C-alpha cells in the first residue's frame, strides 16, 4: 500500500473511478478490501483527501467556569495558529522531540469547531456528539471538571475519537475511569498530595491536627483521600473530614465547628466558586488569626488556580497549594508560550490554557509521528511519549494509564503582588520522581485500541 492509500482507503477519487468505467468498479472496491485489516482501515471522521482536518474544542462557555473556558478557548485558537505555521510559533520552537512542521498536521490545515459543556456531563456529551456526528472532528479536547472529563472520555472510547482532557484533577480520570481514547496532561489529586507533603512538613512541622472540608462528590473525595494519606504519613492527625454540598454558597455552618475542634490546620478540598466562598468565609471567621495548640492556625487549599486566587482576593495571600503550571515560570518554553499568548490577548495564560494548548500540540505531534490520523496508531504514538520544552520540564505520557508525569508546582498566594496578574508565587518545584505512583493502585482498565 502506498502512503496515499493509507490516508484514503478508497484509493481513488470519484473522478478517477468514473473514468475507469463500469467494468472496473470491482477494482475500485479492491483497495478497500485489501486494507480492511491493515492499520489504515476506515475510522470515524477520516479526513481522507480533504485539505483540512477539524479539531473539536469543548469548553465551558456558560456557568461558573465560563472564564476558565474562555481562556482555554484562547489557548486552543493560539495552538491552531501555531500548528498552521501562523504567528510566532510559541512552544513549537521549544518542543523536543518535535515532528510538527508548522504546515498543519500531516500537511492538512487545522480548522476547529467549538462547543459549550456548561460544566454538565449531559451537555458536554451532547456537544461532543455534535462535533463527532455533524462537524466531523478527528479529536476533541477541553473541559473544566472531572465529571465532564470522565463522561466525554467514555464517549470518546465508544465513538473511537481521541479525547485530550482539559482541566481535570480527579484521580479517577486516569485511574478507575481511564480510557484508551482519553489522555490527561493535567496533574491529579494524588500528585497534589505527594507534592504538598514535604513543603507542609517544612512549613508547619509534623505535629498538626488537620480538619478537612470536602466537596461532596468524587473529585473532592479523591483529593481528601490523597491529602489525608500524605499528611498522616507526615505524622499529622486528622481531626475530622466533613463533606459539604456542592455549591453550598454559605459555608458558615461547616466552618464554626472547626473553631473549637482542636484542629490547627484547615484543608479545603474545594474548587472554583466553592473554594472562593469557603476560603473567604473561613478567613472571616478569624481562623487565620487564631492560635491553637501554641501554633498559628493555617489554611491549605490543595488545588488552586490564578482565576480562583483572583476571586478570593486578599484572602488567598499566604495560602499554600499546588498548581499545574504558572505563567511566571522562567524556562524557555513557558516564556515562549507566555509571550505569544500575552501578545495575542494582552494577558497571561492560566494553567487551564497551558494544559489545553499543550494537549492540542501533543495530539498533532503524535499524528505526525504515526504518519496517520488512524486513532489506534496515534494512541500508540502518544503512549509512553517522552517530551520536553512544554513548560513542565521533562514529561512522560505513561502508557499504563495515559497520565502525564512531570514536575508539580507548590505555590503560595502572593503576599505582595507586583501586578494584577502576579497572584501566585512558586514555592517549590517538586520533581516528578516524588509524585510518581504505581498505576495499579487506582485500578481501572484502558480498554481496546480498536472500537
Amino acid at each position, binding site marked *: 500500500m502506498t502512503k496515499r492509500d493509507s490516508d484514503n482507503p478508497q484509493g481513488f477519487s470519484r473522478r478517477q473511478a468514473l473514468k475507469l468505467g463500469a467494468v472496473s468498479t470491482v477494482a475500485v472496491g479492491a483497495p478497500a478490501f485489501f486494507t480492511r485489516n491493515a492499520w489504515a482501515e476506515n475510522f470515524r471522521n477520516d479526513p481522507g483527501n480533504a485539505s483540512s482536518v477539524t479539531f473539536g474544542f469543548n469548553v465551558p462557555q456558560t*456557568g461558573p467556569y465560563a472564564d476558565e473556558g474562555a481562556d482555554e478557548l484562547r489557548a486552543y485558537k493560539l495552538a491552531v495558529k501555531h500548528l498552521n505555521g501562523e504567528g510566532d510559533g510559541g512552544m513549537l520552537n521549544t518542543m523536543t522531540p518535535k515532528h510538527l512542521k508548522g504546515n498543519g498536521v500531516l500537511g492538512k490545515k487545522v480548522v476547529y469547531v467549538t462547543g459549550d459543556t456548561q460544566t454538565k456531563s449531559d451537555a458536554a456529551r451532547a456537544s461532543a456528539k455534535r462535533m463527532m456526528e455533524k462537524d466531523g472532528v478527528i479529536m476533541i479536547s477541553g473541559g473544566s471538571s472531572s465529571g465532564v472529563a470522565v463522561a466525554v472520555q467514555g464517549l470518546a472510547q465508544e465513538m473511537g475519537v481521541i479525547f485530550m482532557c482539559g482541566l481535570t484533577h480527579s484521580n479517577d480520570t486516569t485511574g478507575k475511569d481511564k480510557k484508551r481514547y482519553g489522555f490527561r496532561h493535567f496533574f491529579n489529586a494524588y500528585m497534589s498530595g505527594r507534592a504538598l507533603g514535604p513543603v507542609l512538613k517544612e512549613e508547619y512541622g509534623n505535629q498538626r491536627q488537620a480538619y478537612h472540608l470536602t466537596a461532596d462528590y468524587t473529585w473532592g473525595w479523591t483529593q481528601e483521600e490523597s491529602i489525608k494519606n500524605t499528611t498522616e504519613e507526615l505524622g499529622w492527625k486528622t481531626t475530622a473530614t*466533613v463533606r459539604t454540598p456542592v455549591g453550598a454558597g454559605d459555608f458558615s*455552618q461547616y466552618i464554626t*465547628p472547626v*473553631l*473549637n475542634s482542636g484542629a490547627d490546620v484547615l484543608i479545603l478540598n474545594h474548587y472554583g466558586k466553592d473554594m472562593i466562598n469557603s476560603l473567604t468565609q473561613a478567613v472571616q471567621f*478569624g481562623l487565620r488569626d487564631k492560635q491553637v495548640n501554641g501554633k498559628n492556625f493555617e489554611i491549605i487549599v490543595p488545588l488552586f488556580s490564578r482565576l480562583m486566587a483572583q476571586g478570593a482576593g486578599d484572602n488567598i495571600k499566604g495560602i499554600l497549594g499546588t498548581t499545574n503550571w504558572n505563567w511566571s515560570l522562567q524556562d524557555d518554553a513557558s516564556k515562549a508560550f507566555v509571550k505569544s499568548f500575552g501578545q495575542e490577548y*494582552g494577558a497571561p495564560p492560566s494553567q487551564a490554557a497551558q494544559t489545553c494548548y499543550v494537549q492540542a500540540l501533543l495530539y498533532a505531534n503524535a499524528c505526525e509521528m504515526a504518519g496517520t490520523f488512524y486513532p489506534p496508531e496515534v494512541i500508540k504514538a502518544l503512549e509512553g511519549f517522552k517530551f520536553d520544552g512544554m513548560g513542565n520540564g521533562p514529561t512522560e505520557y505513561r502508557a499504563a494509564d495515559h497520565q502525564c508525569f512531570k514536575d508539580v508546582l507548590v505555590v503560595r498566594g502572593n503576599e505582595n503582588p507586583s501586578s*494584577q496578574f*502576579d497572584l501566585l508565587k512558586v514555592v517549590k518545584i517538586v520533581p516528578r520522581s516524588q509524585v510518581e505512583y504505581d498505576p495499579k493502585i487506582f485500578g481501572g482498565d484502558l480498554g481496546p485500541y480498536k472500537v
Partner: protein
Amino acid sequence: MDAFLLQVLNGLDKGGAYALIALGLTLVFGTLGVVNFAHGALFMLGAFCAVSLQQLLTISKKIKDPSVTFFDAFKETPYMEIWFGDAGTAIISYSVPLSILLAIPVMLLVGLIMERGLIQFFYKRSHAEQILVTFGLAIVIQELIKVAFGANPIPQAAPPIFAGTAPVGHWIGLGDAVVYPWWRMIYLFFSGVVIFAVFAFLRYTTYGMVVRAGMADRETVGLLGINIQRRFTIVFGIAAVVAGLAGVMYTPILPPDYHLGMEFLVLSFVVVVVGGMGSLPGAVSAGFLLGILQSFASMNEVKNIFPGIDQIIIYLVAVVILLVLPRGLMGRKGVMES
C-alpha cells in the same frame, strides 16, 4: 454548648439573608399577584452595585511592571489614594456600606422600570406566562452582567473595622471560645432593621395601610377611588430595593458573580411558600426557621446519624410543613392555590 450557640448564630444569619430575599418576593406576590422569577436577578444586581462602586472608587493609576514584557501588567494605585492619601484608602475600604447609598436609587429605578416596562402587562396573564417572561428577563440580566463583569467572582472586602470576629461568648458569659465575624453580626442586624422598616412602613403609615388593604381586597380599595395601581408599582420598587440591599450587604460573605441570583432563586421560593403565600410575617419566620434548621443539620453529630441530611434538610422541612399546614406557616386561604 458552644457549638450549639454558634449554629444558632449561623442559622440566624442565614435566616436573615433568606428572609430579606423572601420578603421582597412575597411583597410582589401579595400585591401584584405576579410570580417574579427575576427576583434573584435583583438580588444579584444589588451585589453588582457594590462591585461597580468598588471599581469606580479604585480607578487606578497604572504603573507598568517592567519585569513583564509580553503584555501589560500593572501595579495599580487607586487615584483616591494618590489624591486623598489615607482618607482615600479609608473611603475605598468602606465601599460596601457606601454602595447602599448607590443601591437604593439604582434598585428603585430598576424596580420601577421593570414594573412599568414589563410586569404591568402580565397582571392578567397566567402564572405560567409570568414565569416564562420573568425567567427570560432574569437570564438576560445575568448575561448582560456577565458580558460587563466576566464570570469569575469579584471579591468585596468588608471595612477593616468589621474584619475579624466579635467576642460573642465573652459578652454573654460563655467564655472566649464563642466568636462570630463582625460582618455577619452587622448583616444580621441590618436584615433585622430592613425587615422592621418594611413592616413599620406597611403597618404604621397610611400609605402602607392602603397597600395592605389592597393586598386583602384589591377591588374594594379601587372602588374607593384610590389609585392602588400606582402604590403597587412603588411596592415593586421597594421589593427591588430590599432585594438589592440584601445583595449589597452579602458581598463580603459571598464574592458575587453573574450567576448569584439563580442560586438564591429556588431557595427564596421555598422560603416564601413555606411561610405561606401572601404573608410577610410568614416569609420572615420561614426564613429564620429554615436557616436555623439548616445550620443544625450540618453539625457533625447530626450528619453522622443521618448522612447527607444537610443536603436535603430545607426541602424535607418544606415537605413536612406543607403537609401539616396546608398553606404553609401563615398563608392565607385561596392565594395562589389554583
